[in-house]
């Protein structure tokens, strides 16, 4: 009974943290556009607050730069269970145009932290980002929460 109740509540309360590991801001502003009345992220119970210690879902944006190689893992360690990571845009998947001879990026991000969902695009449309969060968020939160109990 308690588990079932927790499942329902957890599914509709997803806290999101956005980590820019060296992108061009393009995907950042598409995440900000999700907050707008047109897409209205909060109707799905998703709340963007940029605090890794309270986040259920971590959105990773950008190819991993020199400064982020260790810091990303340290931030990932601070995220509470379930640690769900959504990689947004081409940068965390492949490095996009930056992954060339002479650059200082270390894509893909899956070399550093496990990734649950990937959205390609430069940048992806806001609705695609929303679909990715909703495809992995609620079920994983409910399932992993049960394992812990």
């Amino acid at each position, binding site marked *: 009974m308690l588990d079932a109740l927790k499942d329902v509540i957890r599914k509709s309360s997803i806290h999101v*943290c956005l980590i820019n590991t060296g992108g061009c801001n393009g995907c950042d502003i598409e995440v900000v556009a999700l907050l707008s*009345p*047109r897409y209205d992220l909060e109707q799905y119970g998703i709340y963007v607050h940029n605090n890794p210690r309270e986040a259920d879902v971590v959105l990773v944006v950008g190819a991993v730069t020199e400064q982020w190689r260790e810091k990303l893992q340290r931030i990932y360690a601070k995220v509470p269970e379930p640690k769900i990571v959504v990689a947004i845009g081409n940068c965390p998947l492949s490095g996009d145009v930056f992954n060339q001879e002479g650059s200082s990026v270390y894509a893909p991000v899956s070399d550093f932290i496990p990734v649950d969902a990937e959205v390609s695009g430069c940048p992806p449309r806001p609705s695609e980002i929303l679909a990715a969060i909703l495809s992995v968020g609620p079920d994983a939160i409910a399932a992993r929460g049960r394992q812990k109990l």
Partner: protein
Amino acid sequence: MILPIGPIHPSLKEPLRLKLKTQGEKVLSAEIDYGYVHRGIERIMKGKTWQKGIYLSERVCGICSYIHTQTFAETFESIAGERAPLRAQFLRVLTNELDRIQSHLLANSTYFKAIEHETLFMYMLYLREPVMDAIELLTGNRVNMGWNVVGGVRMDVKQVHLDSIMKIMLKLESEYDRYVEMFEKGPLVGLRSHDVGKMTRDEAIKARAVGPIGRASGLENDLRENHHTYKDHLDLKVIWRKEGDNFARNMNRFDEITQSINLIKQVIENLPEGDIRKKIDIPAGYGDWRNEAPRGEVTYTIETNGNLIKNISIRTPSIMNIDACAKYMFNDVATVSDAIATYASVDPCIACTERVVIVDESGKTREFDYPNYPKI
């Protein structure tokens, strides 16, 4: 005490470390650490053709991505001593002004989020979405448009699209004053914005502040005045204010949006017929070009040997504005939350500011040793 904020923090959108020196709640001074999003774009661009370089220049900054490609293309055109066809120049102005509107609305929405005025934050994003639709209608993408090439623009525009863009602009204009008035006359917004983070004209000159931040402190210069398309064919009024506080910076951006809507109307009404692109042979040479980005002036200096880019240097506006913020605006800020609001009011864009130079103990500088670059 030193209060570190960032790189990941609820109040910041982009990774950056602010070190505020505080006494109680009062902020005495600030120091800023960069370097979290340095990707080495200038280094990658060397030895590439402009066809590859223009995609990289677009990804210097995602918010003002359009102006980077335009400046890149115009630098090459100035090296060749030619100009794009007039229709292409007009279409560039159209896209540039649409991009400026969305960037300013986003900047103001970030400021309202920083002063905890969620209602205006939502209203700004509500106004912004139709502008993003207009950009998508014109260029095919919302953010990274791929719209400029050296010698013109990639696609022509149809009358149907122009009519739709005009309709969007008229709707924006009809609702716009209501939201500006909410900011201008609202008691809460006024209390949090007036006389906070002041920068005088002399300080703005010393800090080399550019764009709306410089213009809000009384520096009356806008590079669009010198640009040939604006100078010869369009009617532009430079917006500037005297106060130099957070309120002035945001009002300046609001007024510039009105000016941009005005320019877009002029472009749509006077759009000339003709080619949109011409072939330009690029000789070996050296050139630079300056344009007014939403945040201020952006300078491209390119040395080419005809085919390939030999050397490139990109100077973006945010670096001057963020330093002006750290040095002059934080001096008499009463609380930490006001310091965050002041930081948001300069519209910082970290992705374009990152450069690396290594300085030895003896003071010698050398270039950063890129780790992925094969040793020769």
